[in-house]
């Protein structure tokens, strides 16, 4: 065990996986020599050489499209989109090929590849550097979408994503890349994809979040000590772990979903639909969503309005707890 940040955990997961499996290649824009703009891949090129860890031309469709070909021909690519906002030039490849090759070839060609992308706001960045695009990728059949919220999960989920036979989109909450450290095992381990984590059990209200917002939710519940909240870290956005959510809602009867992705048609809408379909009669209050507004993420001068803070989460918790039909 040793203390690591999310960033170090991802780096270690890549490093140990590459060491174990020679078919893994890591590439993207500036990921090789420089080790990535966030240094997530630092040291890997030195260790595994320029053929397995390399910089590409600035061409996202080529990065993802070539990963499709590599996966077909025996490699396991782990590619980086420098920011999720820049994954869109590769969207055609992701939606029309990565997600479909297995189905299109009736199982002849599986694509065991991982597409990493730092996502989310709160880092005072330029335009296109702060988006939360979960919905775009979770909506596509054939993809899995994973988001860690802790160093421990980051390592285990990354190793699971690399070992998964299906293509995985791995969104990294860049706001908390270095925000805190946690004891992380030195050996390799997997966190199962498709399983949510109960951060702390409770009976009064179910709060569902993921990524950087788990920390904010944890701070928020401290502001309302009278409420015994159950926090669920979704961890996998697609496929969603229905069981954990439904069991929790059946117990608490109250739900708050918190995400930075914009509201309309977002993950919260899907979660509430699942809850309505499977636990409607257990609800004691209308489920609520606290999300990003349906606007472009503002530049840093306006971004504070957009960022969800613990106080606002606490406000929503109180509002749901006082709901009267």
């Amino acid at each position, binding site marked *: 065990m040793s203390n690591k940040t999310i960033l170090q955990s991802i780096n270690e997961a890549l490093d140990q996986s590459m060491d174990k499996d020679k078919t893994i*290649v890591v590439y993207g824009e500036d990921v090789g020599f420089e080790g990535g703009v966030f240094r997530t891949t630092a040291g890997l090129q030195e260790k595994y050489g320029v*053929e*397995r860890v390399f910089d*590409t*031309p600035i*061409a996202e*469709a*080529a990065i*993802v*499209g*070539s*990963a*499709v*070909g*590599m*996966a*077909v*021909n*025996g*490699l396991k*690519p782990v590619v980086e989109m420098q920011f999720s906002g820049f994954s869109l*030039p590769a969207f*055609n*490849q992701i939606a*029309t*090929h990565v997600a479909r*090759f*297995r*189905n*299109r*070839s*009736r*199982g*002849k*060609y*599986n694509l065991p590849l991982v597409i990493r992308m730092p996502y989310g706001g709160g880092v005072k960045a330029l335009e296109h550097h702060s988006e939360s695009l979960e919905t775009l990728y979770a909506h596509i*059949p*054939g993809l*899995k979408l994973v988001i860690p919220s802790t160093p421990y999960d980051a390592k285990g989920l990354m190793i699971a994503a690399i070992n998964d*036979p*299906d293509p995985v989109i791995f969104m990294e909450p860049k706001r908390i890349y270095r925000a805190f450290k946690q004891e992380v095992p030195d050996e390799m381990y997997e966190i199962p994809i*498709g399983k949510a984590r109960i951060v702390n059990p409770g009976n009064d209200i179910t709060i569902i979040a993921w990524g950087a917002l788990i920390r904010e939710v944890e701070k928020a519940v401290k502001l309302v000590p009278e409420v015994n909240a159950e926090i669920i870290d979704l961890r996998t956005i697609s*496929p*969603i772990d*229905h*069981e954990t959510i439904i069991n929790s809602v059946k117990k608490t009867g109250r739900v708050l979903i918190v995400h930075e992705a914009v509201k309309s048609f977002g993950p919260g809408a899907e979660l509430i639909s699942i809850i309505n379909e499977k636990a409607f009669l257990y609800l004691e209050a209308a489920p609520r969503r606290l999300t990003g507004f349906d606007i472009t993420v503002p530049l840093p001068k306006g971004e504070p309005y957009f960022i969800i803070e613990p106080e606002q989460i606490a406000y929503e918790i109180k509002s749901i707890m006082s709901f009267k039909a």
Partner: protein
Amino acid sequence: MLFENFDPLKGEMLQILNQEGLIVNDELEPKISKETLLKMYRTMVLGRIADEKALQFQRQGRMLTYAPNIGQEAAQVGSMAALSEQDWLVLAFRESNAMLYKGVTLEQSFLYWYGNENGSKYDENVKVLPINVPIGSQINHAAGVAYASKLQNKNEATIVFIGDGGTSHGEFHEGMNFAAVFDLPMITVIQNNHYAISTPRHRATKAKTLAQKAIAYGIPGIQVDGNDPLAMYLAVKTARERAMKNEGPTLIEAVTYRIGPHTTSDNPKLYREDKEVEEWKKKDPIQRFKKYLISKKYWTEEKDIILQEEHKQTVLDTFKHVEENGDVSLDEIFSYTYESMTSNLKEQLAYYKEYLEKAGEKNVE
């Protein structure tokens, strides 16, 4: 040397066998075994007959939209004959002759156009990627396949086909550039059949040739008479030699013509003159290849009649088999989205089965 001698900027185009079936460039005539030449010819004839019949089946409402290859057989088969068993084929969607030559069965090809994904489940040892509908995106796949070949020291090249229209796509540029930067063993064949559905070649690019686009990638590019199987063979063979020597990709523009429609949904009379089509019919790749084979005493008109009849029967029998076995089960449409069905999918499948049980079988005809 071949590529230096045919400069697309000077309007030089490689041709070995002219439209009369005569060798116009003795020095360049490739030495191809009789067996290979006959395999090439048989594949081209099978491809032609399969296309003609498929168009009929489609008109009879027995097949989906179909994209015929008529007129482009040499561009495909000439290319494939120059490759080795271990090489990869990455497709656009108008390459059924290349597929047949590479070992995709006629049944699989028909099954796909019949509307069944099993048509893209080629046999285990057939190194062909499935038909790729989004224009231009396959170049990047080919670059990735080639990167993997190079990294793993596999002695294999990747050939990728694209149309003239596809070269306008951003992904064509990204893929060509990626392959060139990493010196990948990739051979790009542009089937310039002069039309992207209705859009003529001059609307695809201001450039005089498509081959000259290679210059910007720092790789060789050559214009080849795409209806000349020998010229296509030589160009691809030379490109493959470069690839195997780690010299990187090559861009080959096969100048050909789509005699038929874009697909069965298209009416080419709306955008091109019959006269133009007639001119290109005189350059038919199969006719000129037959003359060549007869001149080499490898083939006769009598044998040709027998071959035509055999192939017609094969095509009819194959399609009959597809019609009798082409249905898809409900479970199957759920089974291949992920390696293991997710609980969400299991739930959706179970719901639908329950519905069918209560409402009666759904008619999927």
